[in-house]
């Protein structure tokens, strides 16, 4: 049963990856500008160079051969050059993506740590004051535009109180050798240089962007956990357990929570797409040196190879993340395997 389910998931995954690469490939034709420039990122090349590029990118062959050549280059790691910097796109992506990923992972961790317990509390005290407070707070957090929240926090905590720095990942005083490009891990690997002050500084820089980015997923998780818990608490086996004389904490911790958290696991994986959208805005405001800010700057400079590379990297990551959470969910929940995804 599970094998069949996994087969369906993987064929859907292949289909999605195929559409994604076809879409990326066709962008070369859709973007304004020269086809060769969009493919390679080479500007002002001489006649001989252009001929070499035409040969390499198989421009004169039919579209399927072109797509094949495109895929071969993608696998080789030749993603073209960025029009604005002249450096390989893949190098930029490798350098910048960890920064975005780091921010997103911390925000998601905060969201899970705060969101899930709050949702459980809200459902345990359904229609009483803790539920009402958590519910209205989460509705407000759900509705607040992320860039406005970021500006408000900057106004209060940076300009007003001066508690946190406004931009960047770490103070200019500290020099950290980039190994994994995850700033906290790099500091740990170096053995907390500058007497731990660098670690503290990095945490300070992380505080505001993480808070801003965590706001939306936290509220989504609160609402989702609460709804899921209320559904489970309404079921007959819970009533039976209550009739047997279990108290509320036993009821929730031993009987309701396990079943209620299953859909939540799936929901966590689905957050990545939204999270990266929000991270792009957050990075622009806090000058966080990540992929999102780079992509937004690429569009200002009409840097088409960069946009393609970013699209491919980000979407690939989101697809893989969704699939991982789906597989974990179906491993834990046997019922989900029967309603196989994609089966109609």
């Amino acid at each position, binding site marked *: 049963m599970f094998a069949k389910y996994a087969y369906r998931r993987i064929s859907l995954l292949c289909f999605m990856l195929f*559409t994604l690469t076809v*879409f990326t490939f066709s962008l070369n034709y859709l973007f304004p500008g020269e086809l060769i420039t969009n493919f390679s990122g080479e500007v002002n090349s001489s006649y001989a160079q252009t001929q070499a590029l035409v040969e390499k990118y198989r421009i004169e062959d039919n579209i399927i051969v072109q797509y094949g050549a495109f895929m071969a280059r993608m696998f080789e790691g030749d993603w073209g050059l960025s029009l604005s910097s002249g450096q390989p796109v893949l190098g930029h992506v490798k350098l910048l993506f960890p920064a975005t990923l780091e921010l997103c992972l911390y925000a998601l961790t905060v969201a899970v740590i705060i969101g899930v317990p709050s949702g459980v509390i809200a459902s345990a005290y359904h229609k009483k004051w803790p539920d009402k407070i958590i519910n209205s707070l989460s509705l407000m957090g759900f*509705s607040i*535009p*992320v860039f406005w929240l970021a500006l408000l926090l900057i106004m209060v905590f940076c300009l007003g109180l001066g508690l946190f720095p406004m931009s960047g990942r770490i103070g200019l005083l500290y020099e950290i050798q980039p190994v994994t490009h995850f700033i906290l891990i790099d500091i740990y690997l170096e053995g907390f240089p500058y007497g731990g002050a660098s670690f503290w500084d990095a945490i300070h820089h992380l505080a505001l962007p993480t808070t801003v980015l965590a706001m939306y997923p936290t509220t989504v998780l609160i609402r989702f956990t609460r709804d899921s818990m209320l559904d489970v608490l309404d079921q007959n086996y819970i009533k039976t357990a209550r009739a047997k004389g279990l108290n509320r904490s036993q009821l929730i911790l031993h009987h309701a929570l396990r079943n209620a958290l299953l859909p939540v696991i799936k929901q966590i994986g689905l957050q990545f797409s939204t999270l990266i959208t929000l991270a792009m*805005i957050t990075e622009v405001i806090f000058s966080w040196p990540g992929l999102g800010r780079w992509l937004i700057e690429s*569009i200002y400079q009409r840097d088409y190879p960069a946009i393609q590379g970013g699209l491919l990297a*980000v*979407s690939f990551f989101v697809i893989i993340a969704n699939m991982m959470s789906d597989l974990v969910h179906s491993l834990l929940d046997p019922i989900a395997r029967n309603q196989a995804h994609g089966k109609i």
Partner: protein
Amino acid sequence: MAKFSLFTEESNRSPLFRLWRKFRSNHVALVGLWLFLALTVLALTAPLIAPYGVNQQHADALLLPPSWHDDGDVRFILGTDDLGRDILSRLMNGATYTFGLSIIAALVTTALGVVLGTLAGASRGLKSSLLNHLLDITLAIPSLLLAIIIIAILGPGLMNTVWAIIFALLPQYIHSIRNLVVAELGKDYIIAFKLDGANRWRLLVRGILPNIYEHIVVIFTMALSTAILDIAALGFLKLGAQPPSTEWGAILQENLSLIYLAPWTVGLPGVLLFIAVLSTNLVGDGLREALKNRKAD
């Protein structure tokens, strides 16, 4: 488990009326509905009722704070910006762009989503799979990135943003509608209707759609709140509405350099955005709650 009440009261009201009665008893949702209606009226009539023109400059009144401030002027209730333009008039006109265009985007998405979703739900096999997963790839591309790509192809501008948002919202919509249709198709009354000899068109129009349109309204409010946030975010990133326009995100971006000098020029557009999204979410939540409760009684 069947819930029975001891004191049964015969209720022959129409489902819509019962829905309204449930909705009305939720006061917060009702406030949300009034705010929503007020914003809709504002979006329609803003140029007529705004006190000043959008780009009318008052050289004698630059950067005035709101009128309740000591330095404020009662002529400009919410103050003026660095070019001496009345903020109240600009914000009122902004409702047309941010709120009005979001409603249009959500309506177009609804029309397309309902058509494609019912087709996907009513057909079987490969055709259904294709329709259902046709746009799935846009689920994996973050909506802002999709908007950036569409803008890279078409060039920046408000209408291009609207297209980008429609594309980003559509796949979720198709999935939700399809699930509703499939759930409805399995019910007994549809089978009875089929045995009565209803053809597929009649089945859809008379059987299924009247039973799911309330749920479609709930999905519509969710799409609307996302659309408002996205239009404003793109305006803020200088990719959507361009600066002289009065779109709220664009106003915020234009006044960003004044954040020290005149915080109200940054704060007020955000407050309006917040109210717009909050009222939409309140209506959506209230409606969903009312639908759930109506089923219970």
